[in-house]
């Protein structure tokens, strides 16, 4: 009974999270576009699935992703082996990004842009090569980003200096990179971090910062995602420059 009430409460919270979308869609559909809703039943059923899905996801987050991320971070810190921690950080970044569907979609579109702009020949094989190269580049950069972020937590380097230097890197590269790649490069920072990676990486950072003496989890624990969104921009522009 208690579990049922907890489930009901969680579903209610998820429903509240969705209300803004429902209002926005209803407002634009009925008042601005003045059109009826196509098959209401299917929409209501879809909303029910979204509410259920969000509820399960948050339960799973607290049961699986958060505890494992933090306990592994603490285990690595106790073990004291820098090599394995760094390898783990790299694998986590690389492995979660290379399979990311949003990245695959962006890479394919980028290949189309490049083919239209005459950077690569307009054949399917060349475009596939270009898209795959881009995906590997982005995955490598996310792997390196998580490593860099982990090393920062261990060393206690100030994050703002690193991120601002990264911004300067982005600005300088924007000057030299081919124009067609710039929009894609800027976007690639945002698409790399998926719904499963974010909680895991956040828990890893906070776990590390709280098990190392002298680190504050609030100041030092966050920031891994920031590196994972910054480095891909730099790497994608470099990729565009190398290939043109």
């Amino acid at each position: 009974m208690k579990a049922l009430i907890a489930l009901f409460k969680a579903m209610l919270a998820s429903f509240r999270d969705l209300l803004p979308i429902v209002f926005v869609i209803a407002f634009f559909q009925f008042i601005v576009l003045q059109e009826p809703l196509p098959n209401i039943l299917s929409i209501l059923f879809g909303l029910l699935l979204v509410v259920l899905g969000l509820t399960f996801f948050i339960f799973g987050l607290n049961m699986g992703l958060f505890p494992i991320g933090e306990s592994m971070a603490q285990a690595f810190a106790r073990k004291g082996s820098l090599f394995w921690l760094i390898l783990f950080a790299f694998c986590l970044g690389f492995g979660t990004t290379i399979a990311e569907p949003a990245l695959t979609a962006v890479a394919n579109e980028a290949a189309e842009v490049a083919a239209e702009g005459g950077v690569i020949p307009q054949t399917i094989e060349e475009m596939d090569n270009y898209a795959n190269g881009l995906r590997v580049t982005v995955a490598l950069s996310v792997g390196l980003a998580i490593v860099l972020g982990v090393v920062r937590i261990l060393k206690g380097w100030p994050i703002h200096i690193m991120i601002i230097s990264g911004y300067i890197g982005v600005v300088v590269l924007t000057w030299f990179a081919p124009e067609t790649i710039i929009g894609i490069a800027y976007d690639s920072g945002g698409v790399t971090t998926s719904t499963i990676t974010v909680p895991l990486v956040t828990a890893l950072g906070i776990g590390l910062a709280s098990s190392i003496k002298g680190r504050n989890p609030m100041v030092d624990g966050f920031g891994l995602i920031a590196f994972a969104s910054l480095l891909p921009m730099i790497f994608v522009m470099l990729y565009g420059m190398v290939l043109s």
Partner: protein
Amino acid sequence: MISLSQFIDTFTDTVIDVIPIATIIFGFQIAVLRKPIANLHTVVLGFFYVIVGLSLFLLGLELALFPLGETMAKQLTAPEFLYSFKDDITASLGWIDYYWVYLFAFAIGFSTTIAEPSLIAVAIKANQVSGGAIRVNGLRIAVALGVAIGISLGSYRIVVGDPIHYYIMGGYVVVIIQTHFAPKLIIALAYDSGGVTTSTVTVPLVTALGLGLASQVPGRNPVIDGFGLVAFASLFPIISVMAYAQITQWLNSRASSKENDNAL
């Protein structure tokens, strides 16, 4: 309405997404850390919940939200709709005629960010780590406002056709100035909030809006100008989260200085 095969397809896709992550985690746990996982049952069940939850979530979005939102983005950017508000149909469209588009961009940016699962995750963690000083909903609303402003500004950029890098560089300058003044505790979290906003819910709708705009506005090339909205949606939350912390700090210091006055 929905077939079992559709659910199985989405479920398999999610499982395939999770496999590399699970392999890395359990591989390192067994081969390197060589320790059994504490509460293995709960953790495995948690992973299962995450997979089921994400599959249902994506399936529901596919069924309820994406088709409608994407059609809407196309309809709102179509010339027929835009001219229906103009008295003189021979005049060409100025950037101001796209006001419904900006409003839609703002509203859809805000509402999809509120529902973004990875942002909920980060907000829960930030709340725990800060000992409750950062409220879950406060952070989420701050991020959502940032995304909303970012996407409307990004839509404006596509309409007028300005080069994207001036906007992004301008945003960087604001971030650097704010970093100097914002409370130190919020900085890492603010930088993170740029990356967490754009995933499952926001990206498909925002991409549809960008491509719709770039293909309808005369003189824009969808393959070049259609990109960039995600970049706006990742930059502006950094600014809005730091602003949220600055405003909270300012309010607190004002409240405490008032108390001092009263004591005197």
